[in-house]
């Protein structure tokens, strides 16, 4: 019986993830809680990656908020929204929106100067928010 169990193949997805990810699964609340993800930068690579991430979360994960995207030129954000739908993608008006609403923020930016300026704006917002946080009981 034990030998039979050992020979049983793992489910395809579980087996693939076990091979491809060098980490054990995160704690249960992390997987099942609603995680808001923000995406900054919709360039040649960023657009495709953001689209795949939004599509995957909207299709396979239940009750997850839409991917919050921000790009310097709004046309690309609107193009992504048209390609998917508002259940999968939402457009942030400013970087401050992304900083205040998101648990995980992904950056896909090319120029060092742009990266530096965006990070500084983001850090200033997060720093201000954390300094106004209520004390722990």
């Amino acid at each position, binding site marked *: 019986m034990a030998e039979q169990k050992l020979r049983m193949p793992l489910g395809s997805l579980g087996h693939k993830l076990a091979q491809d990810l060098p980490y054990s699964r995160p704690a249960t609340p992390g997987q099942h809680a609603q995680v808001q993800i923000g995406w900054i930068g919709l360039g040649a690579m960023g657009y495709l990656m953001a689209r795949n*991430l939004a599509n995957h979360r909207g299709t396979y994960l239940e009750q997850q908020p839409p991917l919050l995207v921000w790009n310097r030129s709004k046309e690309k954000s609107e193009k992504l929204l048209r390609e998917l739908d508002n259940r999968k993608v939402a457009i942030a008006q400013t970087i401050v929106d992304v900083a205040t609403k998101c648990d995980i923020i992904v950056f896909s930016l090319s120029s060092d100067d742009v990266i530096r300026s965006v990070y500084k704006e983001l850090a200033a917002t997060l720093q201000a928010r954390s300094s106004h946080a209520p004390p722990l009981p």
Partner: protein
Amino acid sequence: METGTVSRTDITPHQLHLINETRRYIPASQARYQLLASALALTIASIRLLGELDALISAIPHCTLVTAPVFGPPAMAENASLMIALSGDYRSKKEVAYTLVPAIGRRILDLGGNVEKGDSVVRSRAHSYYIY
């Protein structure tokens, strides 16, 4: 190697070691040297920037910086089959890894907790692999 692109006075001994290590993978072709020189110039600039960003983000309570350079052309990004190299805080990498795979990539490489060191190694090696 184009000396005008990467100045030795601007780089640390660790970065110079990386350059020399990467050079061992390169055949004597001028075109490839130029390509690598520009790639290394970009790498060194990015390493400096990463240190700056890590200090900026780590100073904020409950925030961590995880770097995730991806490898592969846009066609692989289209198919969600990129290779992703993660460096940074372990618990954050664990959360992020299950968010990114299989949604945008097919495999994760863990490069440790130091974002500068991990990123510099993988970028210099990855550029040399990319050239071949």
